[in-house]
């Protein structure tokens, strides 16, 4: 490990400043999970297909496996842990729970973050729009009907 190149970075993770020396080839999601113990972001395919590693960087959902931790230097990162703590995804989490909108749950954290970004821009979505929005988070359980139900329900409650 001695010849491993590292870089000192400083970023805001879930509202708190973090300073760290991080290997330049470590992905953002690996850094969050292994070094900061934020294991809510999951690692599936590791090449940007499954979407389970989704985290929010400077307000937009990104693939945590397709970004180096050093690229987050100076930026704000939010994981499902942070979004849960602030309560900004509570309506979605409740709707997912009530509708049992998951099978194994591996995709759920990123699915929730992606759905939240979608609903912010589309407060009154149709089912086709929801499917398009979460298409990058499809995994293999086929449980999407319930997930679409939950997202539509959360949107409806927000409007009441």
């Amino acid at each position, binding site marked *: 490990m001695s010849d491993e*190149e590292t870089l000192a970075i400083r970023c805001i993770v879930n509202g708190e400043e973090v300073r760290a020396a991080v290997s330049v*080839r470590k992905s953002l999601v690996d850094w969050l999970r292994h070094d900061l113990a934020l294991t809510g972001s999951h690692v599936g395919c*590791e090449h940007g297909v499954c979407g389970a590693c989704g985290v929010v960087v400077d307000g*937009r*959902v990104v693939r945590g496996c*397709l970004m*180096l931790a050093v690229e987050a230097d100076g930026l704000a990162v939010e994981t499902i842990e942070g979004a849960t703590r602030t309560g900004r995804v509570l309506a979605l989490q409740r709707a997912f729970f009530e509708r049992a909108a998951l099978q194994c749950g591996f995709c759920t954290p990123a699915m929730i973050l992606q759905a939240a970004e979608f609903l912010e821009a589309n407060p009154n979505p149709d089912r086709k729009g929801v499917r398009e929005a979460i298409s*990058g988070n499809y995994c293999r359980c086929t449980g999407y009907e319930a997930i679409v139900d939950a997202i539509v329900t959360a949107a409806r409650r927000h409007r009441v």
Partner: protein
Amino acid sequence: MKPAKFTYLRPSSLSEALELLHRHGEDASLLAGGQSLMPMLNLRFARPAVLIDIKRIPGLSGIAIGDGVVSIGALTRHFEVAGSPIIRDRLPLVHEALRHVAHAAIRNRGTFGGSLALADPAAELPACCVCLDAAISTASLSGFRSVPASKFFRGVYDTALAHDELISRIEIPLPPDGWTWSFDEVSRRHGDFAVAGIALGVRLAGDVIMESRVAFCGLEAAPRRLAPLEERLRGVRVGDRIAIGEIATRLADHVHPLASEEYPAFYRIEVASALLQRVLARTSEAIQ
């Protein structure tokens, strides 16, 4: 750790980046949005000795309009282009195509210039640039160039970019009035790589096609305008399904399709031909 070892460099100015690119040349990869490079690094298909992260260079991002041209900075992210009123109102082809570019989280990070520099044959934006006669502005220590899109894309992952060159911006001439633009594609899952996609512009007089511009993605090694096909469409009524069907079935005469085990050549042609008929039928419905 997934990628092989590399040296990470983060220039803060264009001149510094060009200096580094000149020094490291073929051993270096440019890191912009990283949405195609990172998978290749993670899988170790790409093992550059040096990674030059160009995201902190000011002035390479943003969309501007002037002099009959829309200028898109190379580092402008797909979601920014998709959300731009200039693009929506003045370049509807690009606006429509972006709906098909990967998934939301990828569009949040991927860049316009990155997509062109990679030149994946299935990519939507290269086909749009060719269809719209865009020019790609490049920079290197030896100076600046403007390369027409028709000469930029040379083959699968192959472009006119030299090893010490980067894309600074893309200039798309504003299309004249009276044209209708459509983009559509077929992929297995929305946002996945296209089996084939079509970028089409038509100028109609009544319901007759006077002029057209056609470029496909996913069909050939690199996108190009299909002049013989455009010629055949001239004078055809846009709602004449039989005439258009005949032209579409002869698409194979004009192209050298990609072939893979997943999608054999005949299937890509079949899909491209169906797309041509679909977008023209839609254009016809829209004018009724």
